[in-house]
């Protein structure tokens, strides 16, 4: 019997690194927080507000994102975009991610490109 809380923790661990990658990638075009969250959601990656906003600040403090307050639709919004350093880091992390993905697929003996899933198959 699978322990749901165990699965939840493992899933959170797995997602933590992926979220950084997804946020950096999505910030190649400028977004404000809410729009960024919606765009990630539309791409199939749901992220909680309480995770996204602290993450954005952390990435900004690391110099990977730049932000600025600007008025849009009569409201002040904070826009984030990838910095030059962020672009370089994203490229490195994407290489790492793809290599890791390929390795895991080979180790698990699955074809990542045509993966249909096992849990809900």
């Amino acid at each position: 019997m699978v322990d749901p809380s165990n699965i939840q923790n493992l899933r959170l661990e797995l997602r933590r690194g992926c979220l950084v990658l997804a946020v950096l990638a999505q910030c190649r075009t400028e977004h404000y927080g809410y729009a960024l969250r919606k765009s990630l959601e539309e791409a199939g990656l749901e992220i909680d507000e309480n995770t996204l906003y602290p993450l954005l600040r952390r990435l900004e403090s690391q110099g990977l994102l730049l932000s600025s307050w600007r008025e849009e639709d009569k409201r002040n919004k904070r826009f984030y975009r990838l910095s030059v350093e962020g672009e370089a880091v994203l490229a490195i992390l994407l290489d790492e991610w793809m290599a890791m993905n390929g390795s895991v697929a080979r180790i698990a003996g699955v074809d990542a490109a045509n993966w249909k899933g096992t849990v809900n198959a």
Partner: protein
Amino acid sequence: MMNSKSEQMLERYLDNVRFWLAAEPADDIIAEIREDLLSQIDGRNLSPEELADLLRKRGEPSFVAGQFGRHRPLIGSELMPAYWRALDMVLLRIVLPVHLLVAAPIQWLQQRSGPEASFIGFGIGQIWNLLFAMVTTAGAITVGFAFLERASFRIKWDPLKLGRLGPGKPAPLRVPKASVVADFVGGLVISVVWIAVLRDPSLASFQFGQVRISLAPVWSGYIWPMLFLSLAGVVLNWFMIAWPMRLRNAPWLRIGIDTANLILMVALVSHGGPWIESNSAKVHEVVNQWLGVGLGIAVLVAGWEVFQRVRCNMRRVLLA
């Protein structure tokens, strides 16, 4: 546009989040949270209940604020094993035994002379003192390790210089069977004597020519507990002899009995005598003086034995 009640609720929520934030980035963070919530509301005229649902989903204010904190653990994972080991060694192997075997008996001897001296009150006071000592010691250790964590202290090590820690599993403590048998017989004799004295108190009186010696009234409160402990020791020793491998907790039972005996002896000594009564004033004085010294030595010996047993408590006991 929200109605004024909903607007007030939103501001109250943001104020509560701000309360938990560090002063410097608070305005910026609150502005961003407000903007996000307004984006979610998207110009709808939310009722207070609908807004409350939205805020509930967002999270409790201290939790929301906490996500923005740059938390650094008080003691990180690298120092944590050393921290637990330090707590274990200092609290359980130093503070606890020193308090029980040294500090408490000394304090009792100092207090016993007072007319209000009560063993129960003293015991409660000692539990409080022990808790206070353990909590303050644990606090000092925690502060020390927190300081090491802040100073980014890391344990330097070299595989070539790792110290030997001894065998992983402690070797069993080998107790001579003869010693257990002697304890069993001795305990049995003492139990029989106490039972006899309880049945006929005159058996505790001795006549040497003109001189008569008997137990002083101070013993009256101690005979029953001493008999109980003596019988407990007899039963334990019998089990040790008959089924030595089954008594995995025998060291703890033995420590419990010895500690209870020690407490009784300390209480008895603390009365300061007289422990015997005699019709001869000279005999009364001399015997009680020597009994005081003898009981004092017995207390120290019993204390040392308990200390030794506590030191060996993690070791299995085998009859040699």
